């Protein structure tokens, strides 16, 4: 028993760690600024380059003990410190690291700097040193420009200048969604709802029709199996019996009558939990156990 519990616990722990590792694999480098003259300031009021990470999961991810590096030969360059509640990134949210080379300023200050005017490689590693994501920032990215993904955690990298459709978006979504495009599409293309009705009714009908056909098939297989069992148990494989078995319909009344007869004959019942079983209980009579002698006679009423 103990062995089983230990095996189950190990399996659970392995599953949990696999899940955790899997969720960390979905953290992405999302936007990078090499030289910062007019963008955001850190908590000391200083402007430096920054790296934005994005949690592409629909669940929170703990990024402590992961590594950031600007040198592929040193993957464990900057370990994200343990013990900071802010290293837990909420689902589909961002976090910014300042590349000021001053890790003593806090969790979100790396121990390396990005160098303007040259290519900068950045890598994100898991705790075991495996590479999760990497990007090469070209030297052509100028001051106050960023190199960012087209959409959060996905799409091609491109230079963003801060102009319209190329916003610089530290700690926020690379594409700002202020409306539900699907709803807008339905409002525009399907004004009266015919399209939705046709599509949705097709899906509902096909789902239930598939289920229906499936259960016709299962029912047919079940009938065939029970028929062959019946023939096997009676030892009679005569064709007439088979044909009769296939064509005979058991009505509810017949089934009830058979069940009652079996019940009477074997005094047995099936696996239903609600069956009422009545058994006669015989007890030998003894005046010592008789209730009647233990009762006091009620005071009689004089009815004269």
């Amino acid at each position, binding site marked *: 028993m103990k062995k089983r519990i230990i095996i189950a616990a190990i399996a659970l722990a392995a599953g949990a760690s696999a899940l955790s590792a899997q969720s960390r694999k979905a953290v992405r480098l999302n936007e990078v600024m090499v030289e910062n003259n007019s963008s955001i300031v850190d908590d000391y009021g200083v402007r430096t380059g920054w790296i934005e990470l994005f949690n592409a999961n629909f669940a929170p991810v703990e990024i402590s003990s992961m590594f950031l590096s600007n040198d592929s030969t040193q993957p464990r360059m900057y370990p994200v410190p343990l013990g900071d509640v802010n290293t837990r990134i909420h689902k589909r949210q961002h976090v910014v690291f300042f590349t000021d080379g001053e890790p003593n300023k806090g969790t979100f200050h790396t121990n390396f700097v990005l160098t303007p005017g040259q290519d900068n490689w950045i890598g994100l590693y898991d705790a075991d040193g495996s590479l999760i994501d990497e990007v090469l920032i070209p030297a052509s990215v100028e001051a106050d420009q960023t190199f960012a993904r087209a959409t959060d955690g996905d799409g091609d990298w491109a230079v963003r200048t801060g102009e319209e459709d190329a916003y610089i978006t530290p700690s926020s979504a690379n594409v700002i969604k202020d409306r539900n495009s699907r*709803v807008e599409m339905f409002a525009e293309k399907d004004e009266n709802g*015919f399209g*939705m009705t046709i599509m949705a*009714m097709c*899906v*509902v009908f096909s789902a239930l*029709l598939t289920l229906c056909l499936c259960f016709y098939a299962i029912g047919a297989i*079940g009938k065939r199996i029970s028929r062959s069992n019946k023939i096997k148990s009676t030892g009679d494989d005569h064709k007439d019996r088979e044909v009769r078995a296939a064509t005979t319909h*058991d009505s509810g009344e017949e089934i009830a009558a058979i069940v009652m007869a079996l019940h009477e004959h074997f005094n047995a019942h099936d696996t239903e939990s609600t069956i009422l079983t009545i058994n006669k209980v015989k007890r030998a009579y003894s005046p010592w156990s008789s209730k009647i002698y233990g009762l006091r006679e009620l005071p009689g009423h004089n009815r004269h």
Partner: protein
Amino acid sequence: MSFGEFLLNNLRQFWELTGFANAEFGNFVMLAVGLFFIWLAIKKNFEPMLLVPIGFGILIGNVPFNTTAGLEIGIYEEGSVLNILYNGVSAGWYPPLIFLGIGAMTDFSALIANPKLMLIGAAAQFGIFGAYMVALLLGFSPDQAGAIAIIGGADGPTAIFLSSKLAPNLMGAIAVSAYSYMALVPVIQPPLMRLFTTKKERLIRMKPARAVSQNEKIIFPIVGMLLTCFVVPSGLPLLGMLFFGNLLRECGVTTRLAKTASNALTDIVTILLGLTVGASTQASQFLTPQTIFIFFLGFMAFIIASSSGVLFVKLFNLVLPKEKKINPLIGNAGVSAVPMSARISNNLGLEYDPSNYLLMHAMGPNVAGVIGSAVAAGVLLGFLV
């Protein structure tokens, strides 16, 4: 400040915190609605399990209080007890728990024995999309229209689940409307059933369903969940729990779990769901012109759903052999409203032929309606989120 002024000041402050000082006309309207629901439940026996908690919830939600005092008592004030209980509605985890209970208490035998009845459950979902089109005509946006239209599924938990995702601001009105019309099914459906059927059709006798083996009953929730959820993964929370509850019931080795899911758990969640849905109808949020439209659309949805179920059976009968014809009186049961609409089929059938029991036949489309409305909710969620 004299002692007298001190007393007066405190009494004035206390008065400002009372319900009398903060009452508005809307509060009294909603209190009257709450009392009406309780009256319907107790005196008319209309879905008392739902209308008593909802009615009392409306009373709780509409006791006026000073919202600027930071008392943390209102259902929309973060951290209040009611707000914590309301999380099950707003985050949508009460409805799947109710579905677990429904699965654990539903016998799908009628459906397994006669799978073609599933199509009636599918046809009745036209009520949802009919109401969707009318809602668009009235100027609602597609996501709001979808949330309102799901009232036609006649399934409270599904309506709450979908509206919490598509139009959280309309959820209170949608939930109250859905439950109100479910309670009014005995009033809404019979006239429609009479209108669309002939006397000859109402007398159709259906063959008794074949006996279903336990293996089939066990296979049903597993295959049902996999098939429907592969088609509509967004229906997973509702359909997954529905079929899981049914597996607990049918597998024969988890009787205790099935009993808990179908009794204690369902009762607890029903109490919390009903009460918090009722309490969410604060007059300031609830008494808007939109609510009137929502009630109108809900009514339309019920009428379309019930009618399309009955009419589909008539259409279906055209292609069925004579001995396999379906009594169209079970068509109304394609809208969920379990088991009320199936009981109506049975009662109406008995009215025309005192020995024609339709209950078990009607349970087929009835539970297919539950599956169908969950699939429809998944489709709307998939298209509009």
